[in-house]
């Protein structure tokens, strides 16, 4: 049994109780993904599985056999940052930084969901084109807590990264 993490195959061995989060951190040494509450409430452990954001603390590594996982290490590097990472730096989208890998993975997933036309709880129209207003971003990022309270800067960072990506696509 194996799963692919940031393009590299990893064998799943050991105790079936191992969460995907513990597998990433302990078995693979990918400590960018953070353990906050370990109960799906804080979002610090958010990673992408097959392109969708999930809480890695609430799934077992063994259940993800055959899937593709992207962690913060796979999103960018200090020398080649993702636009979201660059925007978080520019806008001070953090203070202590502990929630940041989860925030960025979550934002990455959110942009894909919005591009696919997924509505949120605050969307007026379930069928309309998704415009990621600050209100929409706040609702869609509500699964990622920041105890330093950098929320307004996080919204600014995501808003800027989004416009950069849109500009790049045109």
């Amino acid at each position, binding site marked *: 049994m194996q799963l692919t993490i940031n393009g590299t195959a990893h064998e799943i061995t050991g*105790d*079936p*109780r191992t*969460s995907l989060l513990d597998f990433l951190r302990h078995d693979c040494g990918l400590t960018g993904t953070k353990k906050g509450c*370990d*109960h*799906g409430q804080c*979002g610090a452990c*958010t990673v992408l599985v097959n392109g*969708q*954001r*999930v*809480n890695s603390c*609430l*799934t*077992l590594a*063994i*259940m993800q056999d055959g899937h593709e996982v992207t962690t913060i290490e796979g999103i960018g590097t200090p020398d080649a940052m993702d636009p979201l990472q660059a925007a978080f730096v520019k806008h001070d989208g953090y203070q202590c930084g502990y929630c940041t890998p989860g925030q960025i993975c*979550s934002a990455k*997933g*959110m942009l894909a*969901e919005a591009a*696919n*036309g*997924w*509505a*949120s*709880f605050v*969307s007026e129209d*379930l*069928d309309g084109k998704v415009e990621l207003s600050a209100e929409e971003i*706040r*609702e*869609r990022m*509500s*699964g990622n807590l920041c105890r330093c309270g950098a929320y307004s800067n996080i919204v600014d960072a995501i808003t800027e990264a989004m416009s950069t990506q849109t500009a790049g696509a045109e």
Partner: protein
Amino acid sequence: MRPFQYMRPDGLGHAGQLLGDGARPIAGGTNLLDLMKLEVEVPDRLVDLNRLPLGGIEPTDNGGMRIGALVTNSACAADPRIRRNYPVLARAILAGATFQLRNMATTGGNLCQRTRCYYFYNIDQPCNKREPGTGCGAIGGHNRIHAILGASDSCIATYPGDMAVALSALDATVEIERPDGTSRQVPVREFHRLPGDTPQLDNVLEPGEVITAVILPPPAGGRQLYRKVRDRASYAFALVSVAAVVRMDGDTIGSAALAFGALAHKPWHDPRVEQLLAGQAPSDALFHQAADLLLQDAEGQGENDFKIPLTRRTLLAVLREATGGAA
């Protein structure tokens, strides 16, 4: 977390055989793994259903939809046919949890999510649901989130979900495969049960049975609303929620299907309220009569007394909006 045996069945029949005493099926895992970490759930075997062919949303012969048990909450809410024809369902799903959780949580698993009662979650406290016979800590204890309808002397826990409340208003059906390979269908309104003196049983699933799908009747049309009242604007369980499917017939209410969340051990559905509203001209006086009937037997537990007036106000707000803003 206690050790367990992890198994993947190679078919539904095999899953039924593996789901013996002490075994739990797992799909999204968002609720079960949380409870296993706390040792509220201590299965000695996990049966991973994720590789079974229970996905997909397909039309049914009579014009309804069949949602596979493994369809994620996200996929269900994003399906264009669900958004267009069953907006109350899409709205209810989007009102629950977060995108991360909805990307994992499944249709079948969501129906089986367990109560959020503090005493159920704390293994140092008495709880007849977690450990029958130990008593109920919530009765006379902290019970702000607890039931005002259908509770018993054994348990005052509520069913916490949103999706099933909309499914109850829509009168959907749960499709269940028995261990012997035959299948049965149970209306969502009868799937969850009241606690009585066996609160350890959340629903009518028998050992070895697996939910295979949820079946929606043909689109009901009308105004469809899901109103959720909670302590914060996002990512919180309901204190009161109302799912409504209201069809107007000229100036009178043709039909009003209503279901209520966070009031009882199951999504609450009271056909008497629907009968009272049908054929009547909308008015606040009528809506108050509906609330009177709904809440006739409501009983607060102390900290949750506020749910009784809150339910009335939420019902009035929903009925006003659904009937076109009648004063």
